[in-house]
């Protein structure tokens, strides 16, 4: 952990801040999620640091609680999409032949439909709960990690050490997880940072459209939706989620870049 570049340090601190706030929301948030504790659309003050919303709820508290929902759903969905996408990508690359063709063409099919529209259709039919949201977001987004993982793995499977493993008689699982995966990790980590942010954006979009997280729970997209009318009167409550999403996006990617730099070096990097 020595010699962390400044950019990574900043990214690390901000990202950690967001995640800690999410985890410890019940202790940090000054007010409960749904309680009306002040006047309507009050400006920032000592008791309400970010002011209050249209029905007198504390915006800071809602931001913290909303961030908890957003980060939780996005994290689980990212893990799900990477788990399935990368595994399928490696399987396709290592097995080749008809297995590769079947999976790849199916993924092409899914990718040909814009994922927002796909999600909207699915969520209109199935009533959105958090589990459904995670599943839909995770599987729809698995197509991207699949493409990256497959492309990287195809280059690795032609290396002599993979041939050596095959000649030794190793099974596909060893080849995928011990020969290919460690060498494919750095591009995947970089992609993961990016996809996490896209998950945050997708979730916020869905919530803004009313198909995401349902009241009484809320998330950052939901807070924008609730407070968008206030913008007309100069109330800035709707802008805070945007700031939060932007700073989370930048800081996560600063960290991802740093990890990428560390692991691409075969000499010094032990991260793989």
């Amino acid at each position, binding site marked *: 952990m020595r010699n962390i570049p400044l950019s990574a340090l900043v990214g690390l601190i901000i990202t950690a801040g967001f995640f800690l706030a999410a985890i410890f929301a019940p202790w940090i948030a000054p007010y409960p999620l749904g309680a009306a504790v002040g006047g309507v659309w009050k400006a920032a003050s000592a008791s309400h640091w970010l002011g209050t919303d249209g029905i007198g709820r504390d915006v800071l508290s809602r931001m913290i609680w909303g961030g908890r929902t957003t980060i939780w759903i996005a994290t689980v969905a990212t893990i799900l999409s990477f788990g399935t996408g990368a595994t399928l990508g490696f399987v396709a690359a290592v097995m080749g032949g008809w297995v590769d063709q079947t999976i790849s063409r199916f993924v092409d099919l899914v990718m040909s439909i814009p994922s927002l529209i796909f999600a909207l259709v699915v969520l209109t039919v199935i009533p959105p709960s958090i589990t459904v949201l995670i599943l839909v977001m995770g599987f729809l987004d698995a197509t991207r990690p699949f493409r990256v993982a497959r492309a990287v793995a195809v280059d690795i499977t032609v290396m*002599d*050490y993979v041939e050596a493993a*095959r*000649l030794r*008689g190793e099974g596909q699982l060893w080849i995928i997880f*011990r020969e290919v995966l*460690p060498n494919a990790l750095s591009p995947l980590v970089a992609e993961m940072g990016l996809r996490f942010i896209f998950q945050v954006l997708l979730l916020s979009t869905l919530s803004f459209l009313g198909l995401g997280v349902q009241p009484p729970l809320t998330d950052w997209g939901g807070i924008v939706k609730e407070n968008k009318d206030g913008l007309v009167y100069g109330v800035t409550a709707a802008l805070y989620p945007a700031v939060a999403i932007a700073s989370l996006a930048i800081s996560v990617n600063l960290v991802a870049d740093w990890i990428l730099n560390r692991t691409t070096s075969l000499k*010094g990097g032990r991260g793989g």
Partner: protein
Amino acid sequence: MAETLLQIRNLRIEATAYPPGEPPQDIVIVDDVSLTLEKGRVLGLIGESGAGKSTIGLSALAYGRGGVRITGGEILLNGRDLRKLRPAGMRAARGREVTYVAQSAAAAFNPAKRLIDQVIETTLQHGLMPRTAAEMRAVELFAKLGLPDPETFGKRYPHQVSGGQLQRAMTAMALCPAPDLVIFDEPTTALDVTTQIDVLAAIKEAIADTGVGALYITHDLAVVAQVSDDIMVLRGGKTVEYGPVRQIIEAPQQDYTRALVSVRGIEHEEKTPTAEPVLSVKGVTARYSGTRFDVLRDISVDLSPGQTLAVVGESGSGKSTLARVITGLLPPSQGEIVVAGRQLSPDLKSRTREDLRELQMIYQMADTAMNPRHTVGTIIGRPLEFYFGLKGAARRKRVQELLDEIEMSEGYIDRYPAELSGGQKQRVCIARALAAKPKMIICDEVTSALDPLVADGILKLLLNLQKIEQVAYLFITHDLATVRAIADSIAVMYQGEVVRYGTKSEVLAPPFDDYTDLLLSSVPEMKLGWLEEVIAHRKMESAGH
């Protein structure tokens, strides 16, 4: 006293290394090297990889490749210090006074342009002569370099001519602007021996005819002895020995030079084949799927236990394909593979673990043959665990024993491949193959990517291990010197067929068939005047026919 063309005084070249996790360090690539080259003479620069020979060669162009900086000394070309020239002055000198011939002609030519346009490009760029005159000069040079149909040769594209022809075309390109100095950077290293000798003869003749001075860079002392007047031996960026070619070859002063001259001095007593071979390839014919061409035709060879069968041939002769067939990566269309009396399934997937264990493989490029994310302990330990179920401390102990056998005793077990030298990497690959306790190992050009002295060490190790472990080697190589050093039997392959096969003494004794004769006589010998002898001999023979 001839006129001095190039004089380098106390040259110092540095580069900056960026070790991860550490501050950048300046490393010295060339340290205090001085040399003098007179007009019309050839100076050979020789050394192993990392010796700084190419860097010195490029410095005569006042060029440093990839962040390399010339930090001290003088480079006087025709009396002017190149280091003091402005960029415009350097551009005027490059391509006019000094030109460059690169190692890989195939990578250096633009595949989208005709050869003639590329050959005369420099000449036109400098406005040395009008286009028609330049084209005529190029045609003359093509003829001088022995290229077929010199009139129309330039009309072809790079992919339409062979590697040896392309290398000669690049020599023509370098000679076309009538420079004073040409830098040849390993011009024949990537070529087959039978092609190398022609290119070498053509280059030598062209240098003599045009009276150009040359720096000839190579790692092969036998090659440089044929073309140079003087030789400079380099090691780690420093001059080891510098003198006339006769003195270097016949009376080397330094230990390092002596080692280079006597390389491949391995003595190996030939063993007679036994009745029951450990590997028997019977009538194998193979082709790659989707093609209509048989890469291998009716190959039959035997390998006796504890002995070495060398498979020799040029690139494209099918020798590596033979290895793929034996290992099961390419099932043959006809014929069978018998290992230790058991007929092996043609397809890798249906072979038993025991079949796989008996037959191990060592690759040419040790770099790509080891997973860069595994430690040496994992790389060697995995076959132990996989075949023998060794785990934990027992496994580590056995890995250490194997490391002792390959003479890498202390402190290597937890290193990563990137922390090893080229020779050490190949040793680890050998240990990995031995870990399986195989009856035979296929060695696919295992020394081709290594420097001569390192390669020598690997061959000695292999011979030694053969004595201890009684393992048989199928040794695939294009290098006849290696074959002489270690083989018991030899199979010469040409265009997918075995043209000559028998014990070493049979194969290397006359009468030869045409191809074997060509192959044997093309291997450069470490003596002066060898090239002339061979060329004269060949001319006499073709005149006699």
